């Protein structure tokens, strides 16, 4: 039973490497940038896949957590803390290596929160908000849950647009790269394209296989039972509320991480990147990849996000994702791999006859 996922991880890792070699070999290395961005979107989509595809709990608030991650990282790493000898906060942060220097526009140096410390702060904040929001909101079901999470996402994006300290309509710029090691860097421009690509997809592969393990664990089985019937799951002794909350927080943390990494990768973040439409896109990716199908979500996300970032859909970008939502839920509510075309044809025939 458990050989399947391991094979899938190996195949995926090989595909990631092959794609890089082929693209770099063909002199199309610039595609790697969009593939890297698609990887971080995939991270957020994988979180939603667990929550929605396995747990049956819709969330239209993933973009809100993406925003919390991106904006926390971007804001902290572009702060001007003054010289290390200055304020107490700056001294303390510098002493703990939580702050680092980076060049400013005038060629001087600026002390800001170190990217790794900012990432930790972002993840903590994302998790804290997810707990705070999740406790009341996850008591809701169906359309109420959808609207409440949507409201959360819209609140975050409205706050972002309305707050000068977060760059308002302009967003934040000049976010430094996030160095995780000598050859592991998020951001840093085109010369670091290949290492960015491997880091991003490495994260996706590791996350996907961890989630795969989770899904096949006791907690994962409980989660799927929840999707089937919350009452029946409760009767089996599953603490539905706690399980939903934990899954919601996990999904939120993945979206937060995606936001933080994307902000470092792009060197900035703006309000257009955290609109409610982004949440809808994640739902579309899970819907088309298949409810309860991590690998389907991964594949759908990689392909669709890449095409979207390349501008393949042009001005119809949002419409494409809307169409995907409608079509996949109308004709293949379990995902395109499970599309029941026979029943569909029969139904259409029946409609014509009737």
């Amino acid at each position: 039973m458990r050989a399947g996922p391991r094979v899938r991880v190996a195949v995926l890792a090989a595909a990631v490497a092959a794609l890089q070699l082929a693209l770099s070999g063909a002199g199309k290395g610039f595609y790697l940038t969009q593939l890297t961005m698609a990887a971080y979107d995939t991270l957020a989509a994988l979180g939603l896949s667990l929550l929605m595809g396995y747990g049956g709990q819709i969330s239209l608030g993933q973009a809100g957590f993406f925003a919390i991650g991106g904006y926390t990282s971007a804001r902290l790493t572009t702060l001007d803390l003054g010289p290390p000898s200055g304020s107490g906060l700056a001294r303390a942060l510098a002493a703990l290596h939580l702050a680092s220097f980076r060049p400013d526009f005038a060629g001087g140096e600026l002390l800001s929160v170190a990217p790794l410390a900012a990432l930790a702060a972002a993840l903590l904040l994302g998790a804290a908000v997810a707990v705070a929001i999740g406790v009341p909101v996850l008591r809701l079901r169906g359309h109420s849950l959808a609207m409440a999470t949507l409201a959360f996402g819209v609140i975050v994006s409205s706050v972002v647009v309305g707050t000068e300290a977060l760059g308002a309509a302009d967003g934040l710029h000049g976010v430094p790269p996030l160095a995780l090691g000598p050859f592991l860097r998020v951001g840093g421009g085109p010369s670091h394209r290949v290492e960015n690509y491997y880091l991003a997809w490495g994260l996706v592969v590791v996350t996907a296989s961890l989630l795969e393990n989770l899904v096949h664990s006791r907690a994962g089985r409980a989660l799927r039972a929840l999707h089937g019937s919350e009452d029946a799951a409760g009767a089996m002794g599953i603490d539905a509320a706690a399980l939903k909350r934990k899954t919601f927080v996990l999904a939120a943390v993945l979206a937060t991480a995606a936001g933080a990494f994307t902000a470092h990768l792009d060197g900035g973040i703006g309000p257009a990147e955290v609109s409610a439409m982004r949440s809808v896109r994640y739902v579309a990716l899970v819907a088309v990849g298949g409810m309860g199908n991590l690998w389907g979500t991964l594949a759908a996300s990689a392909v669709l996000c890449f095409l979207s970032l390349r501008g393949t859909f042009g001005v119809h970008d949002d419409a494409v994702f809307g169409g995907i939502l409608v079509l996949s839920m109308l004709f293949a509510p379990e995902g395109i791999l499970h599309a029941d075309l026979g029943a569909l044809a029969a139904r259409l025939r029946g409609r014509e006859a009737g």
Partner: protein
Amino acid sequence: MTLELFLQYLLAGLTYGSIYAVVAIGFNIVYSASGVINFAQGEFVMLGGMIAGSMARLLPLPLAVAVAVAATAAVGALVELVFVRWLVRPTVLRLVVITIGVAILLREAALSIWGEGVRSLPYFTGDELSAFSLWGVRVSPQVLWVLGTTVATVALLRLFFGHTMLGWEMRACANNRDSAALCGIPTRRLLTLSFALAAAIGALAGCVVSPIAYTSYSVGGSLAVKGFTVAILGGLGNSSGALAAGLVLGVLESLSVSLWPTAYKDVVALTVLLGILSFRPSGLFGSREASRLGEAG
């Protein structure tokens, strides 16, 4: 804040609040008949304003509004026929996702037809300058049209559901679809009708508010969320509750503008939504019955 200024904000709040109430009533009509929350409800308001805006160049104003309402009603019926009718025992999750998709498709269609520009109808009576003073408050004639239309809509719906055969049938259908079908009520046709009716009411609201709050392709989403807030606040399925809740939300929002930046206006409404859903999902004016209905969905 002076009393005059307060009253001025109050009036603006009541005007927008009554539009939210109409969107909420659209939610209620469809929800009562089918248990579906149609996330595309806000797009009907947008379509009404946009179609009337285009038609007003060719036709006299009343006719343009009539065409817009009829066309949007047809779109509403079409949405039900194409996307909802033939689903066999759909889950709520599926319906939510489908109607969100439909909302996006309608919005994008509007974008490609009308572009990004804003549109507005001329004032129904008078113009921008013909506002009159009432206790120191400037009242635009169009505000009276908005408030009047809302009140008339609620009253007519009350008559329709309380005193006509079709209204009774729709209520029977909402109460228990199987029993209604056994009594010979064409439940499926009534579902289509409920979508058309909700779309028509939304379009009418979109037309009357268009002269004072310009319409663009993107207004539907925020109207849908606020309309849903009002529907929950007033108790799902309760139209008088929706009217009261709409006015409350509109006034809250309007007064918030005097305290915080305008960009935070939506935050007020949505925080109300989160709060009410979390702590009193039956709504301010809702009964326990309505709350059970909501959770069953």
